[in-house]
Every structure is written in C-alpha cells, then in structure tokens.
C-alpha cells in the first residue's frame, strides 16, 4: 500500500478525516457566482499570520525601554541578517491589514452581506477593525523614534478633550502626563499580548459565525438559495454551489498570490513608503518635528479634530459616525441587497467613502 494512503487511513480510522473533509472541504458548498471580494477574509488571515510570525521574530531582538528601543530597531535593520526584511514586512503588513480590512468592509457593505441574519458577523468584524486600529497605534510607538513619539502624542491628545475626565483618561492612557517610559511599557504589553490575543479570539468568533450562518450569496445571483425566513435558526445552503475544496481554495490561493506580489513589490521597491524622515531619528521629547502627522488611516480622525473648533465636538462626531457604522445592520433592515437597485443606499455609501478619502487627503496636506 502507498505509505501516504496508509498514514491517511490510519489517522482516518481514529479521528474520521473523511467525515471532516466531506463536511468542511469537498462537501462544503459555496454560491456558484462567488467572486474575488469573498477572498478578502483569507487575505486578511494571511496578513495576520505574517504579522504574528514577523512580530515574534522581532521580539527576539527588540528591547522595550526608552533607552534601548530605538537602538534595538537600528540593530535589527542594520546588523541582524534579514532583519530589514522581517521589520519591513511587519511595518508594511500593518498598513496592509488596515487597507484590506477597509476593502473587506466596503465589499461587505456593497454586497449587503451585513444584513440579517449576519448582524453578529458584522459586529465581530467591526470589533476586529477597532482592535486592528488599536494594535497599529500601540505598535507605532515601539521603535521610539521621533515619528513614534510625536505621532503618539498627537493621536492620544484627543482623549484629553473629554470634559471633566479628559485629563484623567489621557494620563491613564499614557501612564503619565506626557508620552514616556510608562507609555512604552503599556503600549508594548497591549501590542504583543493583549491585542493579538483579542484579535485571534475575535477572528475565531468571526469564522465560527461565518460557518454557522453560511456564506452569503452575492446579490446578483438568481439560482436556488434557501433564504432565511427569520422564524428560527437556519443555515444558508447552496444546493447547486461549488465545493470549498478544491474550487474556492484555488481562487483563494490566487487572490493570496496577487496580494503577495503587491505586498513584496512594496517591501522590495518602496520599503520606506511608510517611513517619513522622522522615523530615522530617536525620540526627543524636547524637540517637536515640523508637520508631524499620524498614519494615513488616522488622518480622517485627525482632520475631523482640526475642523471643529472644539476637539470634544470632533470626538462626538467621530463617535456618532462609528456608532452608525456599527449599527448598520439594525438601521438598514430592508431585505433588498443589490446596490445597483438601491440609489439612495449607493449615494450614501459613496458619500461616506469620498468623505473618508477626502478627509485623509485634507489631513495629509493641511
């Protein structure tokens, strides 16, 4: 007997591999017209995996203290073999994670996949978006460069504008009145332990919900689908669909390869795209660089705080926008999903996207 078959059979007799394969791979059917936008989740899983791997590797040499953090990063970049590659992959990967999360979220909005019965899928995804913002913010400080120090100072200062308790919140977040050693300590713990564990847990919940509810059918499909009636729990089956393995897995792999080309093109050809000049100087709390700005994904928030004369009003506006986004499945309760047949919905979504991009550009040039 072929040794591979022998080993497979040996394991199958003990844990029922054939059953698992039939249930979750070859027998797991997906909508026939499933498209590339459904691969964003697998790309995000790949990015998260790369972030965890490169993050663990960086911890081998990184030293989380204000005296040694910048030196250890310089050491990784200049002296450790392939240190520049691991660190650049980690920094670029963080930006890719936010970018692809936003793309994933927008594609879900356009395809109406957030609608009932997928409210929990949406909420867990929204939670993931916020946690990724958190992990990016905390990771940004760790190199202890001028950019890290002052971008964190700017990004955390908004909390101080909350009436009565703002100062306390700000001091609690920073561990002191200013960004310093206590900030680095708490951001380090959040970045390497608390938030990765939280994100991994929430990814698990997100995937469980996806599996439990069934993959949503793209809105343009007119074949047989057992839609949810709302009376009791029901798994969305796709009787004439394509199997997850090998059909969709190959599509996922193609999407992952395209992403890898895009990712490595940045890593190898424009590695400093996310590193302005301030990233190459150690933090100096007594010298603020000119035109310091947060990362691109925080620019809309930064600009909103600047537009309003009172920072607290700016925070409230952002809070309303985020609450609206979180509550979207409970606000948009109509079953129609095809965005081409929903002009008001399409207008609102496009306005939202243009406002976000517009604020980002404005924030960059302001």
């Amino acid at each position, binding site marked *: 007997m072929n040794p591979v078959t022998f080993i497979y059979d040996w394991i199958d007799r003990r844990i029922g591999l054939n059953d698992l394969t039939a249930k979750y791979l070859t027998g797991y059917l997906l909508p026939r017209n499933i498209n590339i936008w459904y691969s964003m989740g697998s790309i995000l899983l790949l990015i998260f995996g790369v972030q965890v791997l490169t993050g663990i*590797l960086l911890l*081998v040499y990184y030293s989380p203290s204000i005296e040694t953090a910048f030196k250890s990063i310089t050491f990784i970049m200049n*002296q*450790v*073999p*392939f*240190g520049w*590659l*691991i660190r650049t992959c980690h920094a670029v990967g963080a930006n890719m994670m936010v970018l692809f999360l936003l793309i994933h979220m927008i594609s879900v909005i356009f395809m109406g996949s957030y609608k009932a019965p997928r409210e929990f899928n949406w909420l867990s995804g929204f939670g993931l978006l916020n946690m990724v913002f958190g992990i990016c913010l905390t990771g940004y400080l760790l190199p202890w460069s001028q950019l890290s120090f002052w971008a964190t100072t700017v990004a955390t200062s908004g909390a101080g504008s909350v009436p009565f308790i703002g100062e306390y919140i700000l001091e609690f977040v920073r561990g002191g009145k200013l960004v310093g050693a206590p900030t680095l300590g708490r951001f380090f713990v959040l970045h390497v332990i608390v938030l990765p564990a939280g994100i991994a847990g929430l990814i698990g919940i997100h995937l469980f919900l996806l599996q439990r509810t069934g993959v949503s059918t793209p809105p343009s499909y007119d074949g047989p689908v057992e839609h949810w009636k709302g009376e009791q729990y029901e798994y969305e089956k796709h009787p004439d669909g394509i199997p997850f393995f090998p059909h969709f897995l190959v599509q996922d792999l193609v999407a992952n390869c395209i992403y890898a080309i895009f990712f490595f093109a940045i890593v190898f050809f424009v590695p400093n795209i996310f590193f302005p000049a301030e990233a190459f100087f150690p933090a100096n709390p007594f010298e603020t660089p000119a035109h310091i700005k947060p990362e691109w994904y925080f620019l809309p928030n930064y600009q909103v705080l600047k537009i309003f004369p009172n920072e607290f009003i700016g925070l409230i506006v952002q809070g309303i926008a985020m609450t609206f986004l979180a509550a979207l499945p409970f606000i948009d309760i109509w079953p129609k999903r095809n965005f081409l047949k929903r002009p008001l919905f399409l207008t609102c979504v496009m306005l939202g996207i243009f406002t976000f991009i517009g604020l980002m550009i404005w924030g960059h040039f302001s």
Partner: protein
Amino acid sequence: MGVCSGGLLTLIGAGTVYPIFRFLSPLSVDSHGAKVAISLENLPEGEAKFFEFQGRAAVLIKRKNGNLSLLSAVCTHLGCIVKWEKEKEEFLCPCHGGRFSPDGTVLGGPPPKPLEQLPFVVKDGSVNVG
C-alpha cells in the same frame, strides 16, 4: 503539474525559512567586541578587569609584581565564569571549585585544561586586545 507545484512550494518554503534561519542564527563575533582597549591607569596592581571580547568573557590581571596576563574567563570545566581572588592571586571557579593560577594553569579541582591565554599589545598606557 505535480512536479511544478512541488517545486514552487519548495521554493516558497525555502524563501521563507532561509531568512528566518539566518535572522535567528548567532551573529558573527566580528560584528561586536572585535577590538578592546583597556587603560592601565584604571587598573591597580593585584586587580583584575573582566570584559567582553568577541562575544566571550575575558579577564586582564595586573599582578602585584606588575606583570600582565590576559585570559579567557570561561572555566574549562563546565563554562562558568571564574572569580579573581586578589589576596591569593588565583582564580576560583564558583561552580565546582576549580582553581587556576594567574597564567591560567590548573591548580586544583575538576577543570581538564588551563584557561585560554589571549594575545594583547601594550601601547600608550593601554592594553589593546584583538
């Protein structure tokens, strides 16, 4: 098809594993501590100065008669770092009681061979190692 897929997967695997392996491999000793200069002004007679040289512990002794010795401070028994006993003018390994003379010769205990002697040059009042 199978050979192509296997070859591609091997290439991707090697391209991933090799940088990680090199990243985690010990750094070349030439990259730090390649040369050390120790001023003799700060080293009184009978005292020892411990320092890192090419990634290993080393010790410079200025004996009471003014002679200098430069040795590896790593005990040849199980790799502990020896201590300098100023009064007795000898080294003692605190792990298993190995004893060495100021020139590294084994005086007693389990060490199988003497401490390694390191080359040095005295120039302008300082000892240059490496």
